[in-house]
């Protein structure tokens, strides 16, 4: 259903507005009466200002000024990557997270999930105190109960990689405890395979900055795989064509996958294979590289392509990197063999400095479930994981828990698992507590609190130490951590420095011999190609926002649209157009996917470029005990599956965890169709040069290639030509670096108090994001893209961040009747919210569709949630237009800082939130009037262009052509040929 098809009776109207309309029409007379009375009342009472109070501190902490923000180094715990962060803390509360520039893991970048961790901290639905059977209890109660049973207990956790953290675990084990760890999205097969081939069961360090050719088999390293921010950053260094780079060492990415992943969308070549073919393709590649590992199974990749791709790998040699996210150890063995054959170990991947980001042991977990079922586990302590939800056999786990006499959870939420436990020890949020990490062997990272505990919670380590009767249990965990690190810090570094820097450790080249390859291990690999295929295969993957589901309560992440489909507030069953047709379902049709023993309901959605006969569902959705998402405005009611809501369960999307490892799936339509909250329903550029692109080959010949055709603007304007005497702020977005991860979008929302509006409102195209990432598909044969076409197509995908373009000839400024939007002396298009009367003329006249209107009061109605607001930015009220300000508050902070030190504003001194968090440095901000600023140089890059330049808006935001490392397409060659025709 489209907007406008059925609106004669306001049935499309959001419930809030409908209720309001009703109220007004029913009692219009009362309304008028009240208005009149109010006006009188105001006069008679003679309003005076209400007294406002200021209460200064008794004693000012040294070096802290109220109203000034300070940064504290910490570590992100949003996923297993453990990126280094800086918490911006103002008046005792963290209001923004950013990457810690000195972190060897992620640098200044942080992903959308990392950015959004503040929501988790202030979420009012966190546990406020320890509970027993859902009722609040005292800490002394739970401690007494746990102490009695903690000896010999089983502790189930996620990856714990910190040295001090592990020392606590070891103390627990020394008291007869058993520790089992697992990762909801497992990489155990990689470690296991390396145990067999290299004798060291670890996940290697991957060096994408060293690789000239990357072959990825379902390893979504730009999306969510192991350490996506660091991987994306490293990978992008070899893709960068800015500042005179010649592109000779530009890497090539080939992605073999069934679904359409972020990695696939950014690949120079996508090879569509079903998961069941992956082993065979790997075996085939190995064979072509001279390996005799066994019979090669059948697969659908044409012979010519296989020969070419194998040759490409051979050419790259030790600069090649073959990765796979497969859960099958045999397939991992083949990948290891190929990497070893090419000599890549020691260059693009290294076992001497392995990743410690996923240390889970699936075998130990399987054994634990067996033991639990057999009744041999007396006490189970579940800490920080949610196995009832995120294990493929979660139901079996829940059943097995029934046979455990004592169950205790250490958790910040009463989630699916914790609510099944007898006791819950309410845990601090990661932003409230101390912790340490070793994400990569030799690289250490500390986490410190950015705020005093909001509720009656406790560090999980403190709980554990107390329960095993350790003397450290009576101390604050900070003291334990400090004592540990003071004894273990590198020479020349003290505790204060370590906390200040947050992260550090090994750097430079790894020394020592790389472990050798054990060919004898390859016997098992014989089975890699022998996976049975099914008519409809199911693919599960970690979602880009909710990850493994632990962020399901996060409004910012729920509203962040999936980069590929642009759908928010649910996961969907992705299928290729042909598969959709074959299954007889259409977009939005609720389908039930079933494997043996489990099923889930999700809406179907078309995804061009997927392998046929495959249905892909993302993990992390379908949480049944995640609680309400957003308080007030009924957002959660809009966002959940109505079937489940009838049963009182607030679940968004369907849980795909039971499908992990399943091959065959059956699909049946439920007969119900739901509305998908898509932020963009148009995939095609309609042959207009909005996202310009070219091939590396063409670009090397002509750096302006792909950008030749500019329709010259008709230079007529109502405005005087602006004369920027001082600064002229501007931004350049490198489309070649942008991977579409949407970190910028979430960072912007947090920095600028952009509200979460909920599914219903998104469906009305009323999302409030100041920056969005547009996804454009292009047919591989050069014809106009049509997402509904069922013919076999393998489209190319491009991402384009789109925010206010800060036009010199701004169409919005021309039409505002109250001059609420105007031009600043420094080239910004500024919006004075208090002046805006909400005519929406400006949004109507904006060709970039970047202005957002507050249809309702979107403020948080919950006081705790309000703590997240940035005090340097107004919270806009209903009826007001808003849009990107290029982070005016940061510009003024930068200017003030420069003036304070009597210096000019150097390049990089001011970075808007989007540019700051971008893992690949795709966004560059600066002063276009200062030739020393990078952005001024990029303005002269032959790849630079303005979107819709022909309408003479003269934007302050420009883009750089996307360059793909693949042979030129015929359509592109034709363009260039035409251009030369014009020139001569």
């Amino acid at each position, binding site marked *: 259903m489209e907007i406008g098809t059925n609106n004669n009776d306001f049935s499309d109207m959001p419930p809030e507005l409908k209720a309001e309309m009703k109220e007004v029409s029913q009692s219009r*007379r009362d309304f*008028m*009466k009240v*208005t*009149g*009375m*109010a*006006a*009188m009342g*105001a*006069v*008679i009472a*003679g*309003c*005076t*200002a*209400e*007294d*406002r*109070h*200021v*209460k*200064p*501190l*008794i*004693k*000012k902490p040294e070096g802290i*000024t*109220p*109203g*000034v923000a300070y940064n504290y180094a910490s570590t992100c715990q949003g996923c297993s990557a453990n990126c280094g962060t800086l918490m911006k803390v103002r008046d005792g509360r963290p209001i923004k997270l950013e990457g810690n520039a000195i972190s060897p893991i992620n640098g200044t970048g942080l992903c959308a999930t990392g950015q959004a961790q503040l929501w988790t901290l202030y979420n009012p639905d966190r546990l406020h105190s320890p509970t027993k059977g859902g009722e609040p209890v005292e800490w002394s109660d739970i401690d007494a109960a746990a102490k009695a049973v903690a000896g010999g207990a089983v502790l189930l956790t996620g990856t714990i990689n910190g040295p001090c953290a592990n020392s606590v675990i070891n103390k627990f084990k020394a008291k007869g405890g058993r520790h089992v760890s697992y990762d909801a999205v497992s990489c155990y097969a990689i470690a296991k395979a390396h145990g067999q081939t290299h004798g060291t069961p670890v996940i290697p360090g991957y060096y994408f900055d060293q690789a000239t050719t990357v072959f990825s088999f379902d390893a979504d390293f730009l999306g969510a795989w192991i350490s996506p921010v660091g991987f994306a950053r490293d990978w992008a260094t070899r893709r960068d064509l800015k500042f005179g780079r010649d592109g000779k060492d530009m890497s090539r990415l080939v992605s073999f996958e069934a679904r359409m992943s972020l990695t696939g969308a950014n690949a120079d070549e996508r090879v569509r294979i079903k998961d069941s073919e992956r082993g065979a393709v790997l075996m085939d590649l190995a064979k072509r590289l001279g390996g005799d590992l066994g019979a090669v199974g059948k697969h659908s990749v044409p012979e010519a392509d296989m020969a070419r791709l194998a040759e490409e790998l051979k050419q790259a040699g030790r600069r090649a990197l073959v990765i796979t996210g497969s859960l099958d150890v045999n397939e991992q063995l083949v990948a290891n063999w190929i990497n070893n054959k090419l000599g890549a170990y020691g260059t693009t991947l290294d076992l001497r400095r392995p990743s410690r980001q996923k240390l889970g042991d699936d075998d130990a977990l399987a054994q634990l479930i067996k033991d639990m079922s057999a009744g041999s586990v007396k006490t189970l302590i579940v800490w920080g994981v949610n196995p009832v939800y995120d294990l493929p056999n979660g139901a079996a786990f829940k059943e097995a828990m029934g046979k455990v006499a004592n169950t205790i959870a250490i958790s910040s939420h009463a989630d699916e698992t914790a609510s099944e436990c007898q006791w819950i020890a309410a845990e601090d949020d990661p932003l409230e507590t101390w912790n340490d990490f070793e994400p990569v062997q030799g690289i250490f990272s500390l986490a410190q609190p950015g705020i005093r505990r909001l509720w009656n919670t406790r560090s999980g380590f403190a709980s554990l130490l107390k329960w095993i009767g350790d003397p450290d249990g009576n101390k604050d965990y900070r003291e334990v951590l400090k004592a540990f690190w003071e004894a273990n810090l590198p020479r020349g570094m003290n505790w204060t420095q370590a906390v200040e820097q947050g992260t550090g450790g090994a750097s430079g080249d790894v020394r020592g011999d790389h472990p050798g390859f054990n060919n004898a291990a390859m016997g098992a690999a014989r089975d890699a190609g022998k996976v049975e295929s099914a008519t409809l295969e199911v693919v599960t993957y970690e979602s880009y926002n909710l990850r493994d589901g632990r962020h399901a309560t996060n409004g910012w992440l729920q509203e962040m649209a999936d980069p590929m489909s642009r759908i928010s507030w649910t996961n969907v069953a992705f299928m290729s157009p042909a598969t959709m047709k074959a299954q007889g379902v259409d977009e939005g049709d609720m389908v039930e996917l079933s494997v043996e023993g489990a099923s889930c309901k999700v809406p179907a959605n078309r995804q061009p470029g997927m392998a046929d006969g495959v249905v892909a569902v993302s993990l992390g959705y379908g949480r049944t005990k995640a609680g309400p998402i957003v308080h007030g405005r009924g957002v959660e009611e809009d966002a959940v599956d109505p079937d489940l809501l009838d049963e009182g369960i607030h679940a968004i999307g369907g849980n795909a965890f039971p499908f992990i490892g399943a091959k065959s799936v059956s699909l049946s339509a439920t007969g119900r169709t739901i509305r998908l909250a898509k932020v963009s329903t148009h995939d095609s550029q309609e042959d207009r040069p909005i996202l310009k692109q070219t091939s590396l080959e063409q670009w090397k010949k002509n750096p302006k290639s792909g950008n030749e055709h500019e329709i010259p603007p008709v230079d007529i304007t109502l405005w005087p030509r602006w004369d920027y*005497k*001082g600064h002229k702020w501007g931004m350049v977005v490198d489309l070649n670096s942008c991977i579409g991860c949407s970190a910028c979008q979430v960072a912007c929302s947090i920095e600028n108090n952009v509200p979460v509006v909920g599914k219903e409102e998104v469906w009305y195209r009323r999302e409030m994001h100041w920056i969005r990432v547009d996804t454009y598909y292009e047919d591989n044969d050069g014809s106009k893209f049509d997402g509904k076409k069922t013919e076999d197509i393998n489209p190319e995908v491009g991402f384009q961040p789109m925010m206010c373009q800060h036009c010199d000839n701004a169409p919005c400024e021309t039409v505002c009747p109250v001059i609420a939007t*105007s*031009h*600043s*002396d*420094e080239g*910004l298009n*500024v*919006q*004075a*919210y*208090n*002046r805006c009367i909400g005519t929406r003329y400006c949004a109507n006249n904006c060709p970039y569709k970047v202005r957002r209107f507050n249809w309702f009061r979107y403020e948080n109605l919950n006081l705790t949630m309000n703590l997240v607001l940035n005090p*340097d*930015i*107004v919270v806009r009220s209903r009826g007001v237009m808003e849009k990107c*300000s290029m982070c*005016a*508050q940061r510009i*003024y902070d930068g200017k*003030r800082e420069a*003036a*304070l030190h009597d210096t*000019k504003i150097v390049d990089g001194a001011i970075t808007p939130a989007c540019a700051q968090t971008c893992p690949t440095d795709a966004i560059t901000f600066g002063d276009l009037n200062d030739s020393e600023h990078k952005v001024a140089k990029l303005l002269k890059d032959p790849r630079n262009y303005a979107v819709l330049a022909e309408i003479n808006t003269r934007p302050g935001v420009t883009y750089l052509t996307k360059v793909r490392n693949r042979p030129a397409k015929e359509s592109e060659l034709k363009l260039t040929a035409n251009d030369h025709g014009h020139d001569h």
Partner: protein
Amino acid sequence: MNAKLAILFFLLTIGFAMPILLGVRSVPDIQLPNLHTDYQPEQPIAYSHRLHAGVLDIDCQYCHTGADKGRHATLPNVQTCMNCHATAKGRTDSAKAEIGKLQLAMQDKNQDGQPDGVSWKRVHNNADFVYFNHQTHVRIAKFIDDSGNIVDGIDCVQCHGDMTTAGVAKQQEQLTMGFCINCHRTQNDRHVTANLPALAPVNSCDACHR
């Protein structure tokens, strides 16, 4: 229907005409905090600016320490008061009583077991949608007076009036947009003339509205 309309019209007329009927004088009584000149609330401690800033000639920033560091000028912590008042306990009975309140503020415990402090009433309030930064004006800005002399920082008096003669703090200027922008414009012109463009005050909306 007609009767209903008539009632409605009557009510509306009454509603909107009331201010006029009651006389123009009553209209300025509807005070926004930023326009509230002569606002001089009774403070929890009878503190005299005239005595401290005038007679004793204590610098404004001895107490308002944030003025050159950040957005807020800040009020002094009780400890700052005690720097002097640990020994200066007052000569008259009333002074002794007032100074004694400081001692109490450090002793009285609130529900968290923390000393309760002094809850002052805030005299100068900007509109909620205005961003004003004290540091920019006090420490960074240059003020160019009528005769072209360049002075470091804007004198507190420009906005707050002369506190050395004020006694209990009182709002003396209406903090309207006109009040701000008049100075911004004049100073901007003078900065351009004096060839100090980098420090010229900004006249664009985003200088204060974000």
